[in-house]
């Protein structure tokens, strides 16, 4: 059973073995509005927890997507590079950003589970 966790920067991260898939949450896509451009890292490069991993641009502005974990990028979603609106339409599914091989398989331990994230979003008003 994959583990699903969330960050305070509104990324989600789903772990399956030593690999995770990362994207932005439904709340994040709603806040951004129409997404018109996504910039993804090259497979084989490294991402560091808390540092910029990707860029997402809405009709209004550019925003960073932070890596929730450290590791090596093993795949990126070319579908959203060609059709960024997929991130609005299906942020937790077809709108995923990148897949990372974890340095530390326990890296998700400090992140929020679904209930904690829902409470966190509710506080944002």
């Amino acid at each position, binding site marked *: 059973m994959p583990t699903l966790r969330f960050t305070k920067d509104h990324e989600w991260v789903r772990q399956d073995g030593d690999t995770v898939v990362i994207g932005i949450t439904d709340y994040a896509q709603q806040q951004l*509005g*129409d997404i*018109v*451009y996504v910039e993804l890292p090259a497979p084989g490069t490294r991402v560091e927890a808390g540092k910029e991993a990707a*860029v997402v*641009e*809405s*009709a*209004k*502005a550019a925003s960073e997507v932070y890596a929730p974990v450290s590791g090596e990028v093993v795949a990126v979603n070319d579908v959203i590079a060609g059709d960024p609106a997929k991130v609005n339409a299906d942020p937790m599914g077809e709108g995923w950003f990148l897949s990372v091989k974890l340095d530390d398989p326990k890296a998700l331990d400090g992140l929020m589970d679904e209930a904690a994230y829902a409470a966190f979003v509710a506080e944002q008003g």
Partner: protein
Amino acid sequence: MGSEEIAALRQTPLHALHIARGAKMVPFAGYDMPVQYPTGIIAEHLHTRAKAGLFDVSHMGQVALRGATAALLETVVPGDLAALPDGRMRYTLLLNDDGGIIDDLMAIRFGGGFQLVVNAATKEGDVAHLRARLGASVGIELIEDRALLALQGPRAAAVLARLAPGVETMPFLSCALVEQAGLSLFVTRSGYTGEDGFEISVAADRAVELAERLLAEPEVMPIGLGARDTLRLEAGLCLYGHDIDETTTPVAAGLAWAIGKRRREQGGFPGASRIQAELADPPARRRVGIRPDGRAPAREGSAIVDAAGTLIGEVTSGGFGPSLGVPIAMGYVARRYSDPGTALAVVVRDVARPARVSPMPFVPTRYYRG
């Protein structure tokens, strides 16, 4: 932003309507304004190009001038106002003594006098400037008791004609006082989207009624400032404070068309000697349209470089053009890079990305031509 700053924001007469329709509100020029409705910027933009969009532009300055002659007004703007017939309007510029642009505006001649529509962020300063320059013989007042709505798009004329029959044949850049169904509307055939459309001045206490009647028409959707910006960018229109300001002249900004032939020859407006010199010998930099080759938008402030990486200019407005489905921008470049088709690059997140100088407008304008 602290609560005190939010409390200090001004509200237009349509503020409650925006909230009721679920608008996302943002501070803009001292007003709490709708940046988008739940439909989103792209849907609002495309709807305006396809049908009709209703914009609240009540934050803009409607300026009444009493006792101002064309000759006197021509001492502060370079437009040919003497040749402007009654019932017509003209885009012109308030210039400082160096020929820099204090504001861009619409000058309207109606009922034997003039009125202006100026930008929201500059309206107080414009009034102070006009009072100082035009003297005590002219009454200059910001009209605070009227709202301003813009109805824009290919269906705008058919929609407005249902409330105010006759407006559909108003010439582009004409104005009329329309008394209809208990509403007194001052209507101009103008706008800021590149589409046919109207701006409608209405008493503040009747603005909600007018807006609700227009929004009840099946072709009309409310449009926020986000789509207003993408629409005007596609139309190649300048945004004051970004694409033009007191450091840019009309010639560098590509707005020399707004200076009448007689005025070019005769001068008599602020900065005339510099502007006449620039008309003869173009300035070092020039506003151009820019089309990035890739998908990354180049935003305001992005550096523009040549093939060698040398800085040659800067983006002043940029983003995504929803009607084109690609990024578009405008900015200033050194004169020898200003021809359409010229290859250059825009620096986004420290990477120089290939782009080309593009003619403007990016999307053909569709003003009413009778």
